């Protein structure tokens, strides 16, 4: 191990990151075993707390926790609950003692904390946490080669985009956003079973997710997901907080922000103590130091309505997946809040199965993310298991009367696309205003607004003649891009759906420069390093492709590709990131057709395997044999 750590040529290693509401962790696969990375105090959990000191410096993690008491407004806790939220979101006001900047009508519609008079976005706060995780990983691995970051399955497009932006800001290359429940299933090594149906019940600090997973022939498929992005252990703490406050005969409105925070922490401590004890007596950190006693039965009563909400979502997820509790092969618990005995009892009853919980529920998600990072980057594990994820919430367009026209339904396997055609309502209408929303409700006003944009310059025509084709594309991270085209004139517009909440590339670049101590020179070094890593990755992938599928290229093509690969390696040896980028683009062009042909071969091979299967089936079903012999060229 020591040799590996100090080897200056140690290859970059991909890591898995759980960016949690309460705690965050980073893990990687060491000699085949997923392992969480510790700091020098042997701690793996980094509290998701960021303090901003008067000089504008940040304190992250454990050292920031006590500062939350003294400086509740300058110390951001549970920032995950603010990710991707709009400045006008009423929910944000409910979520803590913070002061917010007024909405900026010219900038992106994102909530901004007012920290000592300066605006700080949730993306920036999360980036601080990710930076400290990156440093932790770099201490252990020297170079971090990309990461898998987990998000609640229920996260919408804005929340996912915000998470990815935070990672970019922290200088991390995101290989994949992975849904937390799927990560948990990987951590339990369920893929080794090859087949089965599983439920993952994830009750974290601030979010609840339930996911039904189907494993067939080594392909993990999310059959359905449900949950609540604003329900978790924090709500238990708040219920207990109110109960304790009432017992002490105090009014919440009379408390200072400091007392609110201290009492919430006291509530959390009482909750933890009731995991093993039946009765807890606590002196409250309030004037007069009142003492209250809480029993486990009282806690059970307080959390019952919260659990019932998780039950509704779970029953709906089972229904969406078309299964009953008896069809399940196992239930997995994720999230620190599942330590509460009432939660375990409720889950066992709900799913009619004793839940699995032998992996620490606080690390299980990070460990699973590490497994996925390894699966994605370790050539030895190619083809071992594949995760097919789904769109968590329906995507649509607002049409007449504020009604949503759903274009992609939730639980659709991703990556995917869909299109729909609309027309003009009025004569001589020369533009369309498009409003893209996400959610299950019928009215756009009740859904999450993702983007508004206009398609202009359509020549005046009578109403109903123009044809506006809207195309939605969702990538494997669940992120949407929209493309609009007026088909009679060919006027087009393409939008990444981020203007409402996300950051554009220029903003990230500027923030990165500002964030680094030595600004541009540090950034240049980082760019060179990143360029070299990618150049080596692409060059060796190209050589491997030529070695495996060399028969798909002509002699001239091969010569062209080989010289482009050489040129890339030469550029990578230099100090100019732009030159590396240009050579990468050259090689990309040189291999474009080769890549297409290789893809066709991959498809043909996959279908050939299928046809053999059909042949066997065909013995029983004559129709199957007919299908088996239909060989259709794919493009």
């Amino acid at each position: 191990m020591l040799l590996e750590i100090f080897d200056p040529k140690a290859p970059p290693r991909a890591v898995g990151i759980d960016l949690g509401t309460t705690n965050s962790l980073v893990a990687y696969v060491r000699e085949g075993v997923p392992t969480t990375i510790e700091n020098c105090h042997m701690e793996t959990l980094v509290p998701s707390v960021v303090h901003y000191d008067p000089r504008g410096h940040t304190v992250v993690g454990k050292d920031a926790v006590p500062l939350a008491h003294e400086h509740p407004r300058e110390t951001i806790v549970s920032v995950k609950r603010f990710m991707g939220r709009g400045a006008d979101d009423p929910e944000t006001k409910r979520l803590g003692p913070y002061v917010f900047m007024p909405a900026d009508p010219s900038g992106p519609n994102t909530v901004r904390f007012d920290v000592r008079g300066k605006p700080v976005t949730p993306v920036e706060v999360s980036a601080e946490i990710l930076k400290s995780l990156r440093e932790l990983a770099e201490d252990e691995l020297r170079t971090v080669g990309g990461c898998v970051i987990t998000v609640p399955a229920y996260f919408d497009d804005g929340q996912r985009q915000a998470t990815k932006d935070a990672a970019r800001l922290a200088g991390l290359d995101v290989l994949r956003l992975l849904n937390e429940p799927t990560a948990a299933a990987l951590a339990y090594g369920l893929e080794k079973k090859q087949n089965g149906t599983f439920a993952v019940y994830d009750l974290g600090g601030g979010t609840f997710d339930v996911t039904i997973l189907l494993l067939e022939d080594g392909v993990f498929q999310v059959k359905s997901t449900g949950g609540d992005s604003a329900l978790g252990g924090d709500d238990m703490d708040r219920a207990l907080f109110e109960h304790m406050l009432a017992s002490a005969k105090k009014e919440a409105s009379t408390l200072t922000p400091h007392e609110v925070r201290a009492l919430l922490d006291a509530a959390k401590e009482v909750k933890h103590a009731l995991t093993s004890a039946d009765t807890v007596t606590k002196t409250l950190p309030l004037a007069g130091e009142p003492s209250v006693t809480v029993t486990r039965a009282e806690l059970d009563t307080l959390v019952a309505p919260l659990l019932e909400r998780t039950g509704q979502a779970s029953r709906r997820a089972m229904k969406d997946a078309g299964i009953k509790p008896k069809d399940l092969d196992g239930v997995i618990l994720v999230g620190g809040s599942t330590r509460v005995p009432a939660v375990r009892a409720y889950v066992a009853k709900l799913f009619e199965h004793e839940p699995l919980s032998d992996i620490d529920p606080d690390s299980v998600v990070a460990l699973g993310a590490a497994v996925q990072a390894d699966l994605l980057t370790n050539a030895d594990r190619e083809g071992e298991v594949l995760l097919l994820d789904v769109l968590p919430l329906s995507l649509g367009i607002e049409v007449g009367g504020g009604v949503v026209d759903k274009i992609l339904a939730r639980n659709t396997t991703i990556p995917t696309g869909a299109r729909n055609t609309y027309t003009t309502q009025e004569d001589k209408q020369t533009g369309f205003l498009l409003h893209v929303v996400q959610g299950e409700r019928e009215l756009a006003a009740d859904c999450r607004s993702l983007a508004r944009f206009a398609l202009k310059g359509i020549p005046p025509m009578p109403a109903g003649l123009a044809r506006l084709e809207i195309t939605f594309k969702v990538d494997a991270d669940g992120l949407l891009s929209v493309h609009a085209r007026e088909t009679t004139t060919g006027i087009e517009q393409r939008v990444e759906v981020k203007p409402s909440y996300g950051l554009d590339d220029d903003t990230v670049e500027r923030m990165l420069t500002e964030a680094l101590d030595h600004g541009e020179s540090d950034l240049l070094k980082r760019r060179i390093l990143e360029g070299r890593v990618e150049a080596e990755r692409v060059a060796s992938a190209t050589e491997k492709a030529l070695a495996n599928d060399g028969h798909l290229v002509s002699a001239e093509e091969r010569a062209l590709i080989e010289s482009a690969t050489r040129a890339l390696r030469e550029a990578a040896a230099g100090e100019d990131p732009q030159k590396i980028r240009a050579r990468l683009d050259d090689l990309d062009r040189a291999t474009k057709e080769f890549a297409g042909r290789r893809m066709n071969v991959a498809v043909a091979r996959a279908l050939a395997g299928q046809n053999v299967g059909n042949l066997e089936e065909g013995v029983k079903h004559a129709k199957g044999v007919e299908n088996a012999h239909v060989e259709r060229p794919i493009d």
Partner: protein
Amino acid sequence: MNPFSELGLADTFEVDVKALEKTHRDLSRALHPDRYVQAPAGERRVALERAVRVNEAFRAVKDPLSRAEALFALRGTPIGDGKEPKPDPDFLMDVLESREALSDAKGEKNAAAVAKLKAAAEANHERVLAALGAVFAKPEKPDESAVKLLGKLRFFRRFLEEVSDVEDDLDAT
């Protein structure tokens, strides 16, 4: 896009769902972006485009309604743009009556009546599927009466969803 050829299938209304799911898994294994994380950008793009098309095609073929719509389009009778023929008055009467019966059964919390309506709708649903199968078994262009089957299929599906919601309500109380 012909969703059937995208998946290497013949364009028939009868589909072996198990085999279809296996094809989808096999193609996903070959094309999913996770398989191309280390690949050059161009290859990643090509794979993503193909994976998107495979998932779209799978969705279109798996669901009998979109499968029928795709087959109508392939047989020269594209669906959509409000060009579908109006349903028959008799069918509209049936629709109104079933809706009313379901709403009554819900009001009376009459689980037996709901079950009866469900069985009838399921049988009708099956009949429409069989009729569509017969339409597409013939090679010629489907006529207008065949397109009306789509409206019926949509109705029975929606009705069965409503029945399922009513069942949930009755279970919960």
